[in-house]
């Protein structure tokens, strides 16, 4: 091998392998669509979102309209899902309730992710004692059972849907912090981070412009899976009477009020329960599909 060849010096390289930037996104989408479960999950989520957005147009009745003459009617052509103990149309209440449940879920995950991502980035990037302090606090938070932590937060702040959001978000924080820290450690070692440091970029630029965009995929997967848990936890807290208060058509609250009539009118509790289950299932299988699509080892 001799490198003393001076003749090889093409000054301009012709035509680098051409492919458009969006081809990456296309590849990702086709990967996702190949996963049947993920497609079904996405389909469920989209339907729920559409129903929530267009609830006032779709719902046959007002969710609050009391009609004591028609109370506890089983499903019929007038009331597809029957009526509850105060004669309110269950279908309409579920449609409106989807806004509350999904709103709480999204808000809680956004809140938890925001704080968790910042903690994780800082811990992973700075390392040493900063890392130790932040991650030990996260360990303490993880050591609490989620519902107990939420109970403590609500006991301190008082029962309301906003406080449920805060509580559910709070116990997502350590999960995001862990995942983000791990990915940050991985990306931090890459040479382009050294390159940008040797150009003199400050820590803020490095963290948010160069590390954060490159660790988005695990965050998105985690957020999708957390949405399912958050919706379930929020409904659970409302069921315990700590979240949305009657007459609000929150699904957990509806379940709770249907509990007393489980034998005489099971449909009062059944339909909100089904609504929660299908939505949570949708987010879970969609999250799993996303994870597979993002994972380069799954690519053929």
């Amino acid at each position: 091998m001799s490198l003393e060849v001076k003749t090889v010096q093409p000054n301009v390289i012709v035509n680098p392998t051409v492919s458009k930037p969006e081809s990456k996104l296309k590849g990702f989408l086709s990967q996702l669509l190949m996963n049947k479960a993920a497609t079904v999950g996405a389909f469920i989520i989209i339907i729920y979102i559409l129903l929530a957005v267009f609830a006032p147009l779709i719902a046959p009745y007002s969710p609050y309209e009391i009609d004591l003459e028609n109370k506890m009617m089983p499903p019929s052509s007038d009331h597809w899902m029957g009526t509850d103990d105060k004669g309110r149309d269950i279908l309409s209440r579920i449609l409106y309730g989807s806004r509350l449940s999904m709103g709480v879920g999204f808000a809680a995950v956004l809140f938890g992710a925001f704080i968790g991502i910042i903690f994780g980035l800082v811990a992973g990037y700075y390392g040493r004692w900063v890392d130790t302090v932040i991650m030990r606090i996260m360990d303490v938070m993880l050591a609490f059972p989620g519902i107990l932590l939420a109970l403590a937060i609500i006991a301190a702040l008082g029962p309301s849907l906003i406080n449920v959001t805060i509580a559910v978000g709070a116990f997502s924080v350590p999960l995001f912090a862990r995942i983000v820290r791990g990915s940050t450690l991985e990306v931090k070692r890459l040479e382009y981070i050294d390159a940008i440091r040797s150009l003199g970029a400050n820590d803020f630029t490095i963290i948010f412009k160069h590390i954060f965009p490159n660790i988005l995929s695990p965050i998105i997967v985690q957020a999708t899976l957390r949405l399912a848990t958050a919706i379930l936890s929020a409904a659970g807290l409302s069921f315990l009477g700590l979240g949305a208060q009657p007459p609000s058509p929150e699904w957990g609250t509806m379940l709770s009020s249907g509990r007393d009539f489980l034998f005489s009118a099971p449909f009062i509790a059944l339909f909100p329960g089904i609504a929660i289950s299908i939505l949570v299932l949708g987010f879970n299988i969609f999250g799993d599909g996303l994870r597979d699509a993002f994972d380069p080892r799954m690519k053929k």
Partner: protein
Amino acid sequence: MQAQTRKVILQVDHLKQYFPVKTNSLFKPKNYVKAVDDVSFKLYEGETLSIVGESGCGKSTTGRAILRLDEPTSGKVHYSGKNILELNKRDMRKLRGDLQVIFQDPFASLNPRQTVKQILNEAMAIQEVVPKKERLERLLELLSYVGLPPESLSRYPHEFSGGQRQRIGIARALAVDPRLIICDEAVSALDVSIQAQILNLLKKLQRQFGLTFLFISHDLSVVRHISDRVMVMYLGKVVEIAEKKSLFDQSFHPYTQALLSSIPVPNPKLNRDRVILKGDIPSPIDPPKGCRFHTRCPFVMDRCKTEEPELREVKANHFVSCHLV
């Protein structure tokens, strides 16, 4: 070449880089990997000094310590009259425009989510070398220096081949008008034919801009092609440092001799005296006492096991640390 009369651009004195090793016990004393242990050398303006040695000898760590990508344990690095290891964050940031680096892995050294234009623009913006209005012009100029077509600007790194990516990395380093570039195994990841192209490009740019290179490599053929002087490292120490010709013609240290005899020769019928070293490189956590090379040296004497050799000048500009000479 009269090295003495030339201007020293960078002077490294007693540079040490120890990395703590994690111990399982809370109470055991901490161990250290002595990656770079008391390394001193000078770098003259406009020259190419190569650091060679096998994996783990501390050559890359030396480069990273000079740039303060890892904070060195002790020592001094003088650049234009200042010890850069003592500079505060702000002054260091300013100075970084003068010292640039080209990395080994062209696939890891570019942010996959930035276009070439963004990568180069950011470099210029951080160091504020070019006013905003003139940046586009400068971008095209940079691309022509490194031999990439202007269309490359809007492309992402994954759309380029390894050699082309390395050119982007070189353009990024050039974007801030550096004086010294540390090439950390800059061609090791490339095909041989591409290696030659990149090496020639580096040489051309060096002439064009009067750059100084600190060229870190394990590939002696590459080193022979590009360097003015060569520094050989073994286990965190400098064992020999000399003008390229002097070193390749007559090396004094047994380790250098072994390294040089490992260069492949194109003629298979040629009979060569190969010096084959026995054993593995010792652990840098607990390096051998005396001369670090004595465990593998074919000419080992009793003295080598106890007394550490100093770096001595045996010929003009040819320094060796060995008791044999």
